[in-house]
Every structure is written in C-alpha cells, then in structure tokens.
C-alpha cells in the first residue's frame, strides 16, 4: 500500500529576531501515514509533536525536509513547498485538522460550526444539517446545546464540537492533536469508536493522544519523537 503521507527529514526551528534566538521545535522527523490506518506520534512534552502536525497543515513553515502528500488522483505534493493556493485547496478538500482548542466565529451555533466544512464542499444546507445532528448525537453532545454558540460550553463539549467539525466531511488525511484531553471516559469511548469507524472508511490519521491506552487501541504504527537537538545559529 502506498502511503498517503510520507514525511522525511522534517525539521522546524523558530528564529526569534527580537531575542536573537533560534528555538528548535522538531528535527529529523520521519513518519508515514497509510489510508485506513492510524499513526500515533508519541514522545515527551517539547519533542515537537504538535509542531509536526502544524507543519503538515502549513500553519508552520517547515525549516527543512519533505512532506509528501498523495492525493486521490495519485498526484504527489510536497506540502513543505506547495503554493498557498494548493494548500488552501487541500485544506478544503483533503486534509482535516482537529486541534486542542476550538477556534471559530463567535455567535455561530454549534451545529452551524459543525457543518461548515460540508457547506464549503457544496453539500446542501438541509443534508448538512441532518448529518450534523447525527454526528453530534453520536458524540453525545446534548441536543439542547446544538443551537447555541460554543463560547460558554465546557472544555469537553467544545472539544467534541471541534471533533465533529473535523470529522464530518471525512477528509482523506486527518490530523488529531489530543482530541480527548478534556473528555471523561464515557465520551472518550464514543470518540474512540468514531475514530475506528472512519479508519474503516479509509481515512488516514496522524494523531497525538493524551491517553496511552488510546494509542494501544487505535494505532497501527507508533512514531516516538525525541527532544530536538539545539540548533547552531547560522554564521553571518
């Protein structure tokens, strides 16, 4: 099976001009993700797990290395080098990212936030709404919350809205950054079941989990990251 995502030699460091410092974030990362499988990123705090996901989504500009993504037509794109328009297109169609925190427009209802990715792909409002309701129910979000903006929700409720939005359009590649960190065991179980379902549907997943038991249960591969080596400032 050909990998959906093939990362090799990925490094990221931040150059802080004001402090005149180079901060290493991750180095020499090698990871592959296959369709229908889950690769878990593990490692101590500060080993750059989240940075790897952000480099794939291009929220961070990789410093070096390749991030090869293979799309439906078999075309390979290096996400580290791709144009902004190509990245935006892949974000719309192919790549989903569920972060730890819900960033969304204030004042929009939980259901509207959940179905945004479907509307962006041209699904009709009524169908999107019905799929949104099913998914929120599956994730045990109480129905009385669906019409409210998530600003006042609890951490766990926000996290499930965030997950619902990330999963609803079934991206080909899904990036998960601690999607269960603030969930209780009952809702964590429903998230785990949902992840198993979408794996069976062929979605490739790269995930960071807070709970080691989720790694054991869901991961097909595990990649352990080491704390990055300090970077030498470039000679001027």
């Amino acid at each position, binding site marked *: 099976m050909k990998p959906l995502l093939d990362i090799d030699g990925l490094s990221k460091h931040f150059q802080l*001009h*004001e402090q005149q410092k180079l901060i290493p974030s991750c180095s020499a990362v090698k990871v592959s993700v296959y369709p229908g499988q889950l690769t878990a990123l593990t490692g101590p705090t500060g080993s750059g797990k989240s940075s790897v996901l952000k480099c794939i989504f*291009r929220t*961070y*500009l990789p410093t070096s290395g390749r991030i090869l993504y293979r799309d439906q037509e078999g075309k390979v794109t290096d996400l580290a080098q791709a144009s902004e328009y190509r990245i*935006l*297109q892949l974000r719309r169609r192919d790549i989903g990212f569920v972060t730890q925190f819900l960033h969304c427009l*204030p004042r929009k209802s939980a259901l509207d936030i959940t179905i945004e990715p479907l509307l962006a792909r041209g699904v009709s409002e009524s169908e999107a709404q019905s799929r949104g309701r099913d998914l929120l129910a599956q994730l045990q979000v109480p129905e009385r919350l669906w019409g409210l903006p998530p600003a006042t929700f609890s951490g766990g409720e926000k996290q499930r809205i965030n997950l619902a939005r990330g999963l609803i359009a079934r991206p080909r590649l899904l990036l998960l950054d601690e999607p269960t960190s603030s969930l209780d065991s009952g809702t964590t179980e429903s998230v785990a079941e949902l992840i198993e379902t979408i794996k069976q549907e062929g979605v490739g997943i790269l995930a960071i989990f807070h709970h080691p038991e989720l790694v054991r249960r869901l991961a097909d591969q595990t990649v352990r990251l080491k704390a990055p080596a300090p970077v030498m400032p470039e000679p001027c």
Partner: protein
Amino acid sequence: MKKILEVRGLTRIHGPGCPLCFENTGAEAETNVCSSCGSVVAARDVSLDLHQGEILGIVGESGSGKSTVVKTLFFDAEPSTGEARFFDGDKQLDLFSLNSARQRWLRNHRFGMVYQNPNLGLNFNVSAGGNIAERLLMSDVANYASIRQRARDLLTRTEVLGERMDESPRRFSGGMQQRVQIAKALATRPPLLLLDEVTTGLDLSVQARILDLILEIQHELNTAMIVVTHDLGVIRLLAGRTLVMKYGQVIESGLTDQVLEDPQHAYTQRLVASAL
C-alpha cells in the same frame, strides 16, 4: 479557482522622486520619506494575486501603504508605476492604462469599495435608498419601481430597516452607515470588493455583525475581497491569505494562520506579540 486580479510592482510616490528614493525608504530604512528629495514613498513594488471568492488581508500600521494599494486599484489615487490586470469573464483589462471613462465604468459596475469613513462612500445629501439608486442608475437599471425594490432588498440584506431607506444616512449610527455603504457597494454584484478599515472605530458587537455580513456575502456571491485593516483579529476571522506591509513595502505574505502563528519577519513577530 480563477484569478481575478494580478498586481505587479505597484508604486506610488508623492513628490518629485529621485533615483535614491527606494534606497532611502522602506522597512529597512524605517521611513517612507526619501532623505535626498523629500518625496514620500507611499507604496513600493507591491505585487499580489487575488482569486475568485478569496479574501486577501493586508495588515500594517498607519503609513504602511495598505490603503494606498486599494485606493489605486479603485482609481482614487494614481500609481507612479506598476501594473494591475483585472480578469473579467474572458476579458483581461490593464487597469492603469484604461481611459478615465472606462475606469469610471469599472468603478460603477465591476468594483465595490467600502471606506472607513462613510463620508467618502456615501452622499449624505440623499437618502440611504437614494445612495443605492445612484449606483444602480449608473449601471443601467432605469425603471423607478425596480430600482426602489432593489435598494430595499439590498438594505434588508445588510440589515438596515426598510422603513428607514428614505432617511439620510447622516442620521444613522456608524454601524448602520457601514451597512448602507456595503449595500451600495454590492448593488451591482461586483466580483471585486475593496474594504478599507471598515470596522475600525465601531463597537465590538457592531463590528462582529459587520464581519458576519462580509463572510455571508463571500459565501453567497463568491465575491473576491481585499480587506485592509490594522486589526489582526479581523484578519484572522476573514482572510485566507495575508500580506504584511511596513513603510510602503510588503515585508511578508502567507496563509493567514501561518503569518499569525509562525511570522518570519522581525516586524510581524513584534506585531503578533503585541496583539491583545
């Protein structure tokens, strides 16, 4: 996505200009006044692309040249050098070489502009509805009843009460004046909308509703927009891609989340670090 606008090397210099102007100004020199000839370099060598339905953000502090860019594109100011191509259906128009009649036609039919100061975008001597009618009249709709209906629809769309369409916008609140401006700009369903600090100085709740409206318009009409602002929050909410300007120069550009979370230029890092 189809490209709708392509700007290359846009430059605007106030004053005589001299061969040293570029050397003496810009982000590195930390000024836009040329020390040799005293000219002000408002914008220099600005290039950008805009695709259909895309919102592009331009951020920077006052004097960075961000408004100059949209003003030249709307023909409110003349560029010193540079090119801008507008792709309209299968036509390709070289904006700065058109005669003024053609430029006026484009302003009235194909472009929309919303200014920070409603005084610039609205005529306070006629009613809110009349402001929209003016633009419709310039663009070939000639039947009184249909103009009035269209104006009412547009004002309703932008949440201005239809009952108040015969009042002068002078009597409206700042937020409502911006809504009338947006309704007026949208009257001809332009494929390109330019927004210059449209939420600056408004209450937060009013600001939020204007931003909602802008996103709804983008979604419904697939309008391409350039949003100029000094407010990073506005950029984060609206723009997919962002340019950062300083002293007339584009110093950084990228996907908006990347510019905000992993800024490359020292100035952008300072700007992001000092945002609330």
